[in-house]
């Protein structure tokens, strides 16, 4: 009997935490739903995610194979090719659909790298005082002043073109912003009473960090992530345009690169130039709107406005 009671209590303590967090997320969701711009962003994003996931259903991957392409070269939109064809006779629409996969993939994976790096370094520099904190903080600051695009270009030229290289390049060049944000959050959470209490009852640093600090900075990390994805997708597009992308895979950036070098501007092939760019703008805008909405909800300072 007593045992069961204990068990129930033990369970409910954990459950309680879980419930509290769940409730918190529900609250966030409720607030989020009230923000029209955020919902709009989410809608657009869902659309592209579905397109990316359903790419094999929407169009055969054979459409990407230049050896199987038999459309006209740079042909205008027609009933067969809704968005015209590229310089190899492939359907632009097919490229666009499959390009969504690569663009989103690069954006998200690069952001994950950047988030992990940024969160770890931000936590460390915020939580630890002394030289550890100081060094990581300085490191972050230094990285912050290295201009992103030149660094990315240099890295990409050194590593050579390739999908994973571009992911790595974007990942390792975009973390400092996140790190600073996490650091400032950590600093303020560190001062709160419950951390003192935890410390008083003997919680180790690892425990404090993983059980108290991290869960509390997570919402900010989350909001920041969506903003970083937006930037990562833009970066991928730009690097691909500069010829540093993976030439064997189709992303929106490599499409624009192809269009530019095939002379699509001069020959007036708008169908090859406009759609990939519009997709980039929509997706980046979607992530930005979502990120902004989340930030407003999660960041008390902004909420006050």
């Amino acid at each position, binding site marked *: 009997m007593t045992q069961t009671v204990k068990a129930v209590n033990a369970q409910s303590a954990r459950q309680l935490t879980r419930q509290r967090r769940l409730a918190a997320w529900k609250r966030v969701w409720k607030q989020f739903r009230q923000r029209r711009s955020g919902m709009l962003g989410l809608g657009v994003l869902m659309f592209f995610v579905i397109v990316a996931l359903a790419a094999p259903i929407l169009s055969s991957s054979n459409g990407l194979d230049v050896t199987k392409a038999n459309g006209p070269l740079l042909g205008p939109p027609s009933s067969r090719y809704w968005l015209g064809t590229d310089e190899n006779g492939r359907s632009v629409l097919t490229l666009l659909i499959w390009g969504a996969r690569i663009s989103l993939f690069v954006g998200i994976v690069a952001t994950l790298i950047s988030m992990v790096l940024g969160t770890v370094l931000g936590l460390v520099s915020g939580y630890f005082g002394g030289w550890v904190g100081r060094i990581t903080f300085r490191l972050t600051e230094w990285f912050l002043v290295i201009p992103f*695009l030149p660094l990315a270009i240099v890295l990409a030229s050194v590593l050579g073109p390739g999908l994973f290289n571009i992911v790595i390049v974007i990942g390792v060049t975009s973390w400092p*912003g996140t790190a*600073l944000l996490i650091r400032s959050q950590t600093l303020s959470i560190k001062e709160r009473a419950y951390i003192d209490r935890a410390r008083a009852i003997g919680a180790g640093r690892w425990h404090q960090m993983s059980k108290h600090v991290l869960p509390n900075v997570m919402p900010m990390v989350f909001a920041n992530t969506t903003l970083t994805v937006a930037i990562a997708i833009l970066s991928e597009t730009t690097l691909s345009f500069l010829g540093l992308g993976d030439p064997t895979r189709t992303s929106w950036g490599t499409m624009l690169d192809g269009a530019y070098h095939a002379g699509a501007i001069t020959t007036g092939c708008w169908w090859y130039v406009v759609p990939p760019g519009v997709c980039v703008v929509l997706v980046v805008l979607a992530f930005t709107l979502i990120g902004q909405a989340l930030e407003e909800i999660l960041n008390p300072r902004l909420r006050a406005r």
Partner: protein
Amino acid sequence: MSVPAADTGLAEAEAAAEGGQPRRRGYASYVGFKVLGSIGSFFFMLVVNFFLFRVLPGDPARTLGRGRLSTPAQVEAFNKTYALGESIPRQFLTFLHNTFTGQLGISVEYHEPVSTLILHALWPTLLLVGSSTILATVIGVYLGIRGAWRRGGLFDRITTGSSLTLYAMPEWWLGLLLIAALGVGFWFIPGLFPTGGLHSPDVDPNSLHGVLDTMWHLALPVTTLTLAYLADFSLIMRSSLLDELGEDYLQTARAKGLRDIQVRNRHAVRNAMLPTTTIIALNIGFVVGGAITVETVFSIPGLGLLATNAIGVPDFWVLQGTFLVASAGVIVANLCANLIYGWIDPRVRT
């Protein structure tokens, strides 16, 4: 692209404000502190620069010297200049020495000193980025203020919406669209603007005609960059003004009987200009980085084009040199921004 770094000053100030003890310094010591920090950044950047170009695959004399080194004597001289045969610390010292004496290497492509190439390319970039920054500042600040003042109004919604869209747009794609629409022309509309270059072939750039001709050539690239910067500036101006509008002192000011417009211009805007100034100062540091793609699309013979052209060769000396200049620019601009900020707003001198 300038976004992550654009927060530097702010994020730092914020971090300092939130985390640090309110140990306020005098301006002199603040300056000293910041200058030291910048020197640290610069040193770090040199280290990064050094190692990035030492991890290149292959024999440096071959990779970095490429076809230019034809005799063993030349290879030896090359290795000696860059201390390539020696230990890493020794190489690093030599690298420092070369950097500070302006020896940035010889371009593989043009066999001219990289420093000369960079000097030549500096002016077009400054012209392009400078005029865009000024235009974007004026327009962006204006839009930001107007938007924030009537928050949620039609004007605000339109400007915020278009700023966000512009922000989401790769600036070179915008440039391509402008080229297609206004340079190439479409339908029955002829192209009015040149699609690239800085001046017409046989125009003396120093004559009045030449100046106008250059303006004409710069119209599209400057518009492109202005729109790109504008998005940043107006959003930041708007949000920092919104921040200020929530502050109590404005209520006090209104209570004193000041007109709205006076409250806005004398108090709120003045304070909100701080972060915006910082961002703009920082932006100037991104001269190279920011204009790389736009210069490429519009064939403006500046630093950005120099760098992108070096990618394909690849001309590592040029890449290293432009990277160095780009980073140095950001560090100096960053320092200036911090100094201005610290001077105007003592709160950040922690």
